[in-house]
């Protein structure tokens, strides 16, 4: 999904520039906008400009370098946010991995058996159109019932489960597309070599699926992060960035910049997840070459 053309340095520069522009727009509106916000009838179309509703950008940043609780010698806000971010990133990663594995297994089964594809694919496509994440509040219940020997289900596993659920759908569709993408010439070539389905899968279909798989992996990563954040909120998972967002939002009355810190953390989580997938894409560059003659 990376665009060719602008070199990396230029893109980073524009990214930073974009953030600066956003901050400038924020401050400009805050300075020039009406104190009660733009209200059309009963609807607040543009927000109130008070420091409570819209803290200054520099206040948001400065807040990161003060202790979590205004009084006392707590850890710094940025430390707490970073900790929670990495916690959530870890949970999302587990969910993503599980989702990718399940998605690929499904795709392989669907490619192998036409009937499986006919039976499963409509449901998979359908599930992408409906908000299955609505069941997030209810998943916690299932986990509490599972105790196999000394293994007991922990809350973070429920979060990872929801994340994996959101992740495996794009992967199964992208992987199926990719597995079915090889030229009929290539498939017949494998047939002339008298190799079975498994060798064809490993040598031909899997490598050929990489260009389709990578965008799906990226989407799955983004979905896993969303699933993690939402599930953390619904389940109230301690240590996660989702719970921190809601908790700090409740404290916004006395500390208006506080809710923004975990939001920056959530942004970091999303960017890091996408970054990891981009690295995977780099490692697999060999498989993204086309066959058209020079």
């Amino acid at each position, binding site marked *: 999904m990376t665009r060719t053309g602008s070199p990396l340095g230029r893109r980073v520069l524009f990214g930073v520039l974009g953030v600066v522009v956003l901050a400038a727009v924020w401050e400009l509106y805050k300075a020039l906008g009406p104190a009660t916000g733009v209200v059309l009838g009963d609807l607040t179309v543009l927000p109130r400009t008070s420091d409570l509703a819209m803290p200054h950008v520099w206040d948001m940043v400065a807040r990161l370098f003060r202790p979590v609780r205004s009084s006392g010698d707590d850890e710094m806000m940025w430390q707490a946010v970073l900790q929670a971010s990495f916690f959530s990133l870890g949970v999302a990663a587990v969910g993503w991995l599980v989702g990718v594995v399940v998605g690929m297994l499904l795709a392989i089964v669907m490619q192998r058996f036409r009937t499986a594809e006919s039976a499963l694919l409509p449901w998979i496509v359908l599930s992408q159109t409906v908000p299955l994440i609505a069941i997030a509040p209810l998943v916690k219940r299932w986990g509490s019932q599972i105790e196999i020997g000394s293994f007991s289900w922990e809350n973070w596993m429920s979060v990872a489960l929801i994340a994996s659920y959101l992740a495996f759908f794009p992967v199964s569709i992208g992987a199926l597309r990719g597995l079915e993408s090889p030229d009929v*010439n*290539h498939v017949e070539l494998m047939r*002339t*070599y008298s*190799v079975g389905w498994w060798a064809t899968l490993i040598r031909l279909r899997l*490598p050929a699926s990489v260009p389709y798989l990578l965008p799906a992996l990226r989407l799955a990563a983004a979905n896993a992060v969303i699933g993690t954040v939402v599930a953390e909120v619904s389940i109230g998972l301690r240590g996660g960035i989702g719970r921190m967002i809601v908790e700090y939002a409740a404290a916004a009355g006395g500390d208006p910049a506080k809710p923004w810190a975990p939001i920056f953390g959530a942004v970091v989580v999303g960017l890091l997840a996408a970054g990891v997938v981009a690295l995977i894409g780099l490692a697999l560059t060999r498989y993204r070459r*086309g066959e058209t*003659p020079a």
Partner: protein
Amino acid sequence: MSTAPSAQGQPIASTGPAAVSVAGVSKVFASRKGADVTALEAVDLTIAPGEFVSLIGPSGCGKSTLLRLIADLDSPTSGSIEVFGKTARQARIDQAYGIAFQQAGLLPWRTVRSNIELPLELHRVGKPARAARSSELLALVGLSDFADKYPDQLSGGMQQRVAIARSLAESPGLLLMDEPFGALDEMTRERMQTELVRICAETGAAVVFVTHSIPEAVFLSNRVVVMSPRPGRIRDVIAVDLGRAEGRGEGLREADSFFEAVVAVRESLHGEPAGAPAARGVDQR
């Protein structure tokens, strides 16, 4: 009808079973709507070891279908096909042939060398043996300097050379080629034909070569099988004796014997001209 009696031509070498033996083969494609398509009807053909045979004819005459049946990529509706005395299926399992398609069909994520080694890898040949064989083949097709390049860095002609090298990887006694030069420009095409003739002479493999081009068929072959469509059948088999393979160089394309053979094939393709003597299947000098 099948081949005219005197038109079998001289096999080049008669050692061992025939490379390909097609007996009474028909292929009918069932169609959901409308009539079934008879791609091949009552085809008989025998190809001796080391012989180069071209299949030529208009679209729909079944030449590619016949090649695919020999390759066991499809099965005949009736009749039998034997490759080196085995069934087509067994021949495929035993890897008795190599194949090249019109699109080079190189795997884009493998280097040139790795593409040539593909069949060897699949059949569990050890790394040193693979490397030795692929170096040999790269030299044979003149691409030793490109061993570590990727297909998208090569021209169409070079990709096709890699495909031919790949088809020779396991030193098969039979090569099946389906218009391998079809996507190339004329100059490259003629160069490739000269190369191919040289390579086949060196390896001694029998070749079944499907083509649309009359000069190509004549230049390359010992015999040209002319086919006609609807239903696909062999109209004629024309023996082409233009000398031994090693002697077929660039100059041959301008020799009288070459043109005479081309005329014979063309006339067969278009049906007999009125009043022409029945010069079917006679050796052209």
